[in-house]
């Protein structure tokens, strides 16, 4: 069992992860894993296993609220989850075998790319507006397009889901990273939905939060059976994350979408840099 100071610090970090995660549509793993490995000096595979548990807790906490408030696109989530679960299982099996440095490196590459993508485009009400013209046939067949209520401007927005096949492919990759790196994959899913499939930011966040729980559960089973879940660490993370998520969700429904995207991009950039430094061996003390 880990020392009491580590447990307390972890609980606080988990709270922040849950708070930020529910706000950004991620599980908090992208924050928690670097924190656990760089600050608490926990073995990366244990950190990954613990993080997966945390992601499930964030997801359950945040998504429950978003689903109730009709922000989540349930059909899109289900459709993409086929891809993410496949990816998650493959990733988890791979992750058990792969060298630690490679994990850090992949993590960095993915996170920095996601950050770069997020800063590039702006989302305004005009861009969120319903598009005229032919709907993508697959999206139409699966009735993926939906509607949500945005508290920012008290508007009800109908939106279409575009490029579902591309989104599906990226989700498989997101699932793979989830299994490999112990994250929820939200940091890929949100940009994939928001930028690639043109889902409005808040709906993307809500849908991502809903999906990551399932994705993480698929990998979590595997890590649990491999013995990498440290129960006391996991316990702290569950409690911390769930509390944080309860507060983060309240914030998201009221926030401006553009602010959410900006915060997201900044957070990813910082993260990517830190993980990159770790991958190349320098001991970065936070």
């Amino acid at each position, binding site marked *: *069992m880990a020392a009491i100071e580590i447990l307390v610090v972890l609980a606080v970090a988990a709270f922040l992860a849950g708070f930020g995660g529910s706000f950004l549509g991620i599980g908090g793993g992208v924050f928690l894993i670097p924190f656990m490995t760089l600050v608490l000096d926990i073995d990366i595979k244990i950190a990954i296993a613990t993080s997966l*548990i945390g992601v499930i807790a964030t997801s*359950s906490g945040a998504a429950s609220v978003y689903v*109730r408030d009709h922000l989540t696109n349930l059909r899109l989530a*289900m459709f993409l989850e086929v891809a993410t679960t496949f990816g998650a299982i493959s990733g988890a099996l791979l992750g058990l075998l792969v060298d630690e440095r490679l994990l850090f490196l992949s993590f960095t590459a993915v996170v920095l790319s996601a950050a770069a993508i997020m800063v590039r485009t702006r989302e305004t009400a005009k861009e969120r507006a319903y598009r005229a013209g032919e709907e993508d046939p697959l999206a139409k067949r*699966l009735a993926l397009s939906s509607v949500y209520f945005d508290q920012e401007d008290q508007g009800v927005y109908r939106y279409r889901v575009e490029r579902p096949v591309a989104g599906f492919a990226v989700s498989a990759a997101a699932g793979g990273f989830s299994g490999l790196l112990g994250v929820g994959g939200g940091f890929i899913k949100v940009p994939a939905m928001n930028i690639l499939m043109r889902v409005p930011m808040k709906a993307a966040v809500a849908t991502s939060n809903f999906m990551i*729980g399932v994705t*993480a*559960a698929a990998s979590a089973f595997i890590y649990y059976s491999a013995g990498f879940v*440290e129960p006391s660490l996991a316990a702290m993370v569950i409690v911390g994350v769930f509390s944080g998520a309860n507060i983060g969700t309240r914030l998201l429904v009221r926030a401006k979408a553009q602010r959410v995207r900006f915060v997201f991009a900044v957070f990813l950039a910082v993260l990517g840099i830190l993980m990159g430094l770790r991958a190349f061996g320098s001991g970065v003390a936070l």
Partner: protein
Amino acid sequence: MRVGNLRRAVLAEVEDINRLIYHVLRAGVVLSVSLILFGFILEAFGAGGLPTQSIPPRRLLSELLRFTPAGYVNLGILVLIFTPMARVLLSLLSFLEERDRTFAAITLVVLVNLLTSFFFLA
């Protein structure tokens, strides 16, 4: 509170699948935390040490019957891991009820994927 009102309130919640999912997800976490807390309490009462490793399900039942902290903390974690699966099952039932065969099939694939990873446990 009158039984009729209570019953109507419950039915209203159940009819809206969104609200049902809300309750299932939250209940999963609350149950998980309660079990873990129970495990910690057992440890405080000297029923054994806190677990350092996850316990395979085969041994879990005997641990639970002996009221070891390890058993309950691990059970709590397992309950959490199962919560998303419960939610997927709920979605499946909802799509079946709506007679949406395409999405029932899609949901079934996701459920099978989850079960496949679960068999790594067994």
